[in-house]
């Protein structure tokens, strides 16, 4: 049976002229996409409620928590180091030219610290960990679902959400702030490398500016976000795994969607949290 071409296709036969799709089909596709997003948001919210409801009651799977801290948290350290080094250096390099024009290169330490601690560090850490971890969680749980392992768990009196989702939630909730602190630290050191070797700012001036910007307000803004980002990554990854359907193809789709949804959610949360925390601090 010949495959049905979508309304607009780059693979249209030469004999047929290229035509724009009718507005009705574009509107219909957009409507379907919007409906899917709403249902997805609803599903994730309901699932999050189930996970939170089980996160504080026994039994606690300590061995699984330890394993997840190791795989998800410690396994992401190398990613955070690379991210911090190159992001910190790149940012410092980008700002150095503009700051030199204004005669403000001595403030490099301040800018590097503010940008990384408040925003860049948490967001980049969140996005990199989401890409690595959310997909892995969705793939692992999705594969378990496809091979009836989730049903087998339930048949042995084990709640699959409690066994699989809760340890991952706690592992990311605990490890994301630590990974973010690591990224921030490495990024500031990366900024120092650029300041010292390229911009030629004195080291004492750089580090004095860094210390001056490590204020309670900046730390509150920068270290509150990783807790939320960790929860987002865990909930979205687990939800996509538990809701995957259609065998291996479904698992692949769930993996991709987990990364996309986690990443977008982190960016949205970043903006909303920054606005909220700034209001709280009276900034």
């Amino acid at each position, binding site marked *: 049976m010949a495959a049905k071409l979508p309304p607009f296709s780059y693979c249209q036969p030469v004999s047929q002229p290229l035509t724009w799709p009718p507005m009705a089909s574009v509107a219909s596709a957009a409507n379907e996409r919007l409906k899917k997003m709403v249902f997805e948001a609803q599903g994730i919210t309901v699932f999050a409620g189930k996970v939170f409801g089980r996160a504080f009651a026994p039994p606690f799977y300590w061995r699984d928590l330890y394993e997840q801290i190791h795989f998800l948290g410690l396994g992401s350290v190398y990613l955070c180091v690379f991210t911090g080094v190159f992001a910190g250096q790149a940012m410092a390099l980008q700002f150095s030219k503009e700051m030199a024009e204004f005669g403000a290169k001595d403030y490099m330490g301040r800018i590097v610290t503010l940008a990384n601690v408040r925003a860049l560090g948490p967001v980049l850490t969140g996005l990199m960990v989401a890409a690595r971890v959310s997909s892995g969680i969705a793939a692992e749980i999705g594969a378990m679902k496809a091979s009836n392992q989730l049903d*087998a768990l339930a048949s042995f009196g084990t709640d699959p959400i409690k066994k699989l989702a809760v340890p991952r939630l706690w592992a990311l909730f605990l490890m994301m702030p630590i990974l973010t602190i690591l990224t921030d630290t490495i990024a500031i050191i990366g900024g120092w490398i650029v300041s010292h070797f390229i911009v030629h700012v004195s080291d004492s001036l750089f580090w004095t500016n860094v210390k001056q910007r490590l204020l309670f307000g900046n730390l509150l803004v920068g270290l509150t976000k990783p807790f939320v980002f960790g929860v987002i990554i865990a909930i979205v990854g687990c939800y996509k795994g538990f809701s995957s359907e259609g065998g291996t193809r479904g698992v692949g789709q769930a993996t991709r969607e987990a990364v996309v949804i986690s990443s977008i959610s982190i960016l949205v949360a970043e903006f909303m949290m920054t606005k909220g925390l700034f209001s709280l601090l009276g900034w």
Partner: protein
Amino acid sequence: MIKLENVYLSLGGRPILKKISFSVAKGETKVILGPSGSGKSSILKIILGLWRPDSGRVFIDGRDMAGASAEEWDEARYHIGMIFQEGALFDSLTVGENVGYWLFEHTKMLEEEIEVRVRRALEEVGLDPELVDLMPDELSGGMRRRVAIARALASLEPKIMLYDEPTTGLDPLAVDTILDQITSLQKRMQVTSLVVTHDIADALKVSNRFIMVADGEIIFEGSSEELREAGHPFVSRFLEPFKNTLAHAFASFGQENG
């Protein structure tokens, strides 16, 4: 021991089971036959409490499970073992950890005691206890099914065993081994068994009582003789591909059971 009354089930608006009513007596083995997608596995999931029917009643050991809580279902499942398609072993655990899973998770038994029970369970299903350190993907399909049976035996005190397509995808020798395990278990432990399969020849090796499901409905229930004589057009169509092997299978079953 197991009784379903007027069970209806739909998923995503699509009807899966319609007016399913049957019972399985204590110590009896019944086979649920039917084509793929007819709802056979769904019946097992309802009996295990993994899915709740839209309406109807499910009795396990005389107890109506319709409004049972999660804790009550956990208690009921302590006596129900299920062998899923392809075994459903936990692929991040070794064979030994799989077989002893329930004991590790739900009891305070010492590791040494659990290891003894695990090894005994593996021997009961004809496997070498030295397999305990292997991972599931290092086993053949037949061995994985037997480990799944050992997992149910080691963990629970099953009064009911549910088998979901236990021989699908296996070679003839492995099929015979699994079917022998099922009949041996039934004779030794007098468990009530429900076997789901689409292979009539395999079905005849484990039981003389059949339920045939098509399109979510029971279209036949009876013995192997009644199955052979059934005039229902779907039953005749279902048995047609097995015509050549069935005559021998029915004759063999008749000889084995007098």
